[in-house]
């Protein structure tokens, strides 16, 4: 059983446009049998936070190519990407690099 996990989820680089323009979200993930990881956080975001056009944020079970993920200010590639197990008070930041200038 996983205890409820409190996170700060942030969006930048234009990704916030998919979330009503809100950059910072304080979320509490509910209790569930499997531990929370990025993979199921993404599903949770898709169901609970994404206001429109999910295909602009996600592709399959991961984020859309062009969207970077930072966990506690570090590249998610260093943390295990989708398999990273979320801890209480973690900060997850999604930065879009699409349509850049």
């Amino acid at each position, binding site marked *: 059983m996983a205890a409820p996990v409190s996170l700060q989820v942030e969006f*930048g680089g234009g990704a916030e446009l998919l979330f009503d323009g809100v950059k910072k979200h304080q979320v509490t993930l509910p209790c569930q049998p499997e531990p929370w990881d990025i993979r199921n956080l993404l599903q949770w975001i898709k169901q609970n936070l994404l206001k429109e056009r999910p295909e602009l944020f996600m592709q399959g079970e991961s984020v859309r190519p062009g969207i970077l993920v930072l966990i506690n200010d570090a590249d998610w590639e260093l943390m295990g990407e989708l398999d990273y197990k979320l801890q209480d008070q973690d900060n997850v930041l999604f930065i879009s690099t699409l349509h850049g200038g």
Partner: protein
Amino acid sequence: MCEAAGDDGGCGADVGPARRRRGAGRSYPRTCMKCGQGSAALVIRVGDPFCRNCFREYFMHKFRAMLGKNRIIFPGEKVLLALSGGPVSSAMLRQVQEGLSRETAKKLRFIPSVVYVDEGAVRGQSLAQREQSLARMETLLQATGFPYYLMHLEQALELPASILRPGPVTSSEPGLSYKEAVEGFIQQQRQKGNGDKDSGTSLPGPGSGDSAEGPLAASRLPAAALTQELLKLFEAVETPTAKEELLQMLRIHLILQTARTKGYTKVMTGESCTRVAIKLLTNLALGRGAFLAIDTGFKDNRHGDVMVVRPMREYMAKEIAFYNHFFDVPTVIAPPLPTKRRDKPSIHRVVERFLLGLQEDFPSTISTIYRTGEKLSSDRAKATCESQRCLLCLCALDLDGEEELALEPTLIMDELELERNGCCQDPPAAGAERKSAYIPLLCYSCRLTFKELGPVTTLPPYVRAEAQRRIH
């Protein structure tokens, strides 16, 4: 067929492409590969972990090395930075600030100003949203202390026809090599007595934006009628691809005209390596294969007196995003061009999606395309004389007789059909040119774009004026 592919095991015809999984097997935090001490904050290139400090050094060094390698920007030269508010141009602005403030001999020596073009009208922003973006941008620009120009895309409708003609190339001092120019400049500085601080020796004081010089004061939007005209122009465009091309054209012409009238000989634009790779393939698809080098290279001198340089072209979009996040580079992100649901995406978006997707599984994709682009030469793009120069993109006309014959009848047919159906509210007045008359003035890809623009009456006045001058 794909024996040389290496670890990935070929084209993946039998299995899916190998995912480069950094998985749960690795322990974290990892250490920086450069200093061996700091805890790694990001992964650069294919698998190099860097700590924040080493990353900062690497990032700043790349900018100076890019300028130093190309030796195009002379000391004391007036350079206009094109700031879109997006991540890449904002990072570029920061690099210029950092470079100018250095105490050492490696200090950057040119004189920068900044230009921002508000494109809110065509990007679907409300008046309030545009005001807000402009206010944020102005605050940002005032904090830099550089002179700045706030422009609106609507002003492109007031450009003179001369912007479509290259200006005379004036060399600052004939025969002076880059090395001599630098040495001369250092001598000059020493003689001046150098009592002043490093930054701002020849820069005007903060907030001295020339924004009040133009017809519009900062943060005040253009006349509604002008905005309407601009919107009419964009709404008449048939495809998202042509809209993107039109937007880029208007923007660069507006920026270049600003540079030309205010005496800037260089314009710096923010295009990342990722953007350059996307542009290489997009422009290939648009029929601009002969002009890839000039469209994406470090220097673009088709306009003669003002040269466009692209100093950010070796930075991956990921590096830029991390740098901006770690070091608090402010940005003002504009929404993308709106598209109707029934429209297919533009070629630009399709290629972007393709390349970014490929990059996920094959992380050398972008850099390989970029490096291949580096091998192209821009010789073929330069036009020898006006009759051989494209009206819109100023590159060499690249067509023989045959393709002309194929495209022109279709345009004539379209126009005749419109007239027959009575769609045109303003039938072409006597002396007004038909769309088909423009064709001989355009290169292959500009013809394709032009065909998808609206009727001649919606075109910007400067385009029509220059075309009329050349037709007769």
